[in-house]
């Protein structure tokens, strides 16, 4: 009797947490346990994981508003990233060194994110039901369009443009001297030689996450959740569905823009041209690994998912490499992340929309 109860409760736990998540979490745990035996420093690994967590978490957070309003997974994240890139490049063009440039980049990125997000939201309102495929291709075509723009826009800061022609932006631009590590080094705590906690970056994410969490509990936020879970009911209770959806898309786009800025300050480079092309997939699969589904997501999903996903991305190369002397991490990353998206897309309960 007692064991029956236990198995059923375990089954319930497995069901609520999802089998793929458990497998991924166990896999990560095994990697961390194995690490010291194959000569990989756990401190360094943990520090790398935390660093990557901070770099990517905001972009994963950018999934939340759109999932809440029923727009599905934001495969159009590159659009937000482009707003961020415009902010970054304009900030470098203004050429004010130091941390101020980061604030400027955020400031310049915002209007682009709002305008692009608004247009993107209007588009998605016209294609309800087919958002995800169209979002994917909006992302792709905007990246391709910006490839042309990066060549033509009249930027002139010598650190950014091609040296020999004097025009057209480089494919990667260093942010050294501008906002390299502004958040990473802010209040950072060094626990040991190998373990460094990038406090500022994590605090920045926590701040944004708190704002989104608080927003989702306001009246407009509740309306957003209502639109996502039942648009007909939401309309009946007097919510302007299209307006709420547009707002959610603008928020997602803006978060995407902030996300890439946080990423750049830690990574050290602005990646233009085809750089943002495939950035949506890791973010999408991260939030799904965290337990979100196509129409349900919380801040906890973001935190858990980003940690698990980035943990695997950090740990597999180092551990696998020292174990079997082959770097299979790329393959594992592709299979895990896309497998997770497939799993989410094929859940029956969500397929009826």
């Amino acid at each position, binding site marked *: 009797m007692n064991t029956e109860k236990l198995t059923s409760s375990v089954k319930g736990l497995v069901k609520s947490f999802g089998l793929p998540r458990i497998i991924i979490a166990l896999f990560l745990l095994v990697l961390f346990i194995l690490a010291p035996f194959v000569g990989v420093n756990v401190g360094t690994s943990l520090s790398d994981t935390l660093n990557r967590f901070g770099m990517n978490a905001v972009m994963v957070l950018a999934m939340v508003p759109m999932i809440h309003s029923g727009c599905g997974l934001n*495969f159009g994240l590159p659009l937000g990233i482009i707003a961020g890139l415009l902010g970054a490049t304009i900030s470098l063009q203004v050429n004010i060194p130091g941390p101020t440039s980061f604030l400027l980049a955020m400031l310049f990125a915002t209007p682009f994110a709002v305008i692009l997000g608004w247009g993107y939201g209007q*588009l998605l309102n*016209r*294609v*309800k*039901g*087919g958002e*995800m*495929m*169209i979002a*994917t*291709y*909006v992302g*792709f*075509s905007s990246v*391709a*369009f910006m*490839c*042309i723009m990066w*060549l*033509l826009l009249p930027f002139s800061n010598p650190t950014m443009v091609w040296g020999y022609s004097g025009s*057209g932006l480089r494919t990667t631009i260093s942010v050294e001297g501008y906002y390299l590590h502004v958040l990473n080094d802010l209040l950072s705590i060094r626990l040991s030689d190998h373990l460094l906690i990038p406090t500022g970056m994590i605090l920045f994410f926590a701040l944004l996450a708190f704002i989104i969490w608080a927003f989702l509990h306001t009246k407009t936020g509740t309306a957003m959740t209502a639109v996502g879970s039942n648009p007909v009911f939401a309309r009946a209770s007097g919510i302007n569905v299209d307006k709420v959806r547009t707002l959610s898309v603008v928020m997602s786009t803006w978060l995407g823009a902030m996300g890439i800025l946080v990423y750049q300050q830690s990574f050290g480079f602005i990646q233009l041209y085809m750089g943002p092309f495939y950035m949506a*997939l890791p973010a999408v699969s991260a939030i799904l690994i965290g337990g979100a589904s196509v129409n349900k997501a919380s801040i906890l999903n973001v935190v858990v998912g980003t940690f698990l996903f980035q943990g695997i991305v950090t740990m597999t190369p180092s551990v696998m490499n020292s174990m079997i002397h*082959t770097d*299979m991490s*790329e*393959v*594992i990353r*592709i*299979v895990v992340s*896309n*497998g997770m*998206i*497939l799993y989410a*897309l*094929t859940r*029956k309960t969500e*397929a*009826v*929309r």
Partner: protein
Amino acid sequence: MTLHMTKTQKVLRFMGNNTVPILFLIICAFGIPLSGYSANYLVSEVVVRIARNSFLIVSLLIPILAGMGLNFGMTLGAMAGQIGLIFISDWGIAGIPGILLAMIISTPISILLGWWCGKILNLAKGREMVTSYIIGFFMNGIYQLIVLYGMGAIIPIRSNALVLPRGYGIRNTVNLIGIRKSLDNLLTVRIFGVPVPLVTFAVIALLCIFVLWFKKTKLGQDMRAVGQDMEVARAAGIRVEHTRIVSIVISTVFAGYGMILYLQNIGTLNTYNSHMQIGMFSVAALLVGGATVAKANIRNVFLGVILFHLMFIVSPMAGKNLIGQAQLGEYFRVFVSYGVITISLVLYEVRKKRDQGLAGLVLAAEQEETV
């Protein structure tokens, strides 16, 4: 009883239904003079591209018939075709026998992958396209696992020209010298100085005839019924899930053959890249030809290949002559490829809504008449 339309409305509707081809005609009309290429060069290039790509694009038609949208999972077939090509290169079988053997090897792999893909798409009804798109990425991971780590280690590959120096895994590029253009060069006729590979065209024509015939068979009609309305089809006794799986299997197998024909024309295999782009280019070309997510025919395929590849050929040169940067033209054609798919997908969704509205109007008009 239909709604009466004025002439201008009809013209507008025609324009609305053919936005993408008209847009492309305009781009080509500007691009061709700018590029400065001779007509002869352009025609012969386009003929080469028709021979190279049509087979792949035709493979997209059957899932559209079954209402499953654009099969981005055709990359699965392309992978199967490439695996076939890797084996025949290893065994050193050249010429037509090599091509045939590669096709034979690819068939069971394609069937298996297509069946699996169809199964998954049945779990994701209503979002087949995005799912098939992700399936392509997922299988790319498995493909890399097999080709980059399995081949030479578990699957025996002897040729040193194929295996990486570390002892296992296939090199980034595989030279397909044995089968290079062996089908194209079998029988070439020069028409006004333009070489036309007759056998390849005959193979493509055969496939087109097959597709036309297939649409008239019982299975083809079942697919059309499933594509129109799954519930009605089920009520009529059609095995909906099975029919959908069969449509994907057929598409995947043809995509595999198409990839083999494509690569025999190119002559080198980019082991880890060739298959990833082919899905996007084929889909874009089909849409440029005026196909939609719900409706496509042979005419769309050929119009699409011609228009899309004309743009592809002229844009780098046009970009160079216009702004002085060939790079710009290359980015432009990438942008246009993705833009076309975006516009087509958006138009399809918008049109679906408009037609629903129109159906409502027709119904209202009918009821008014009876009253």
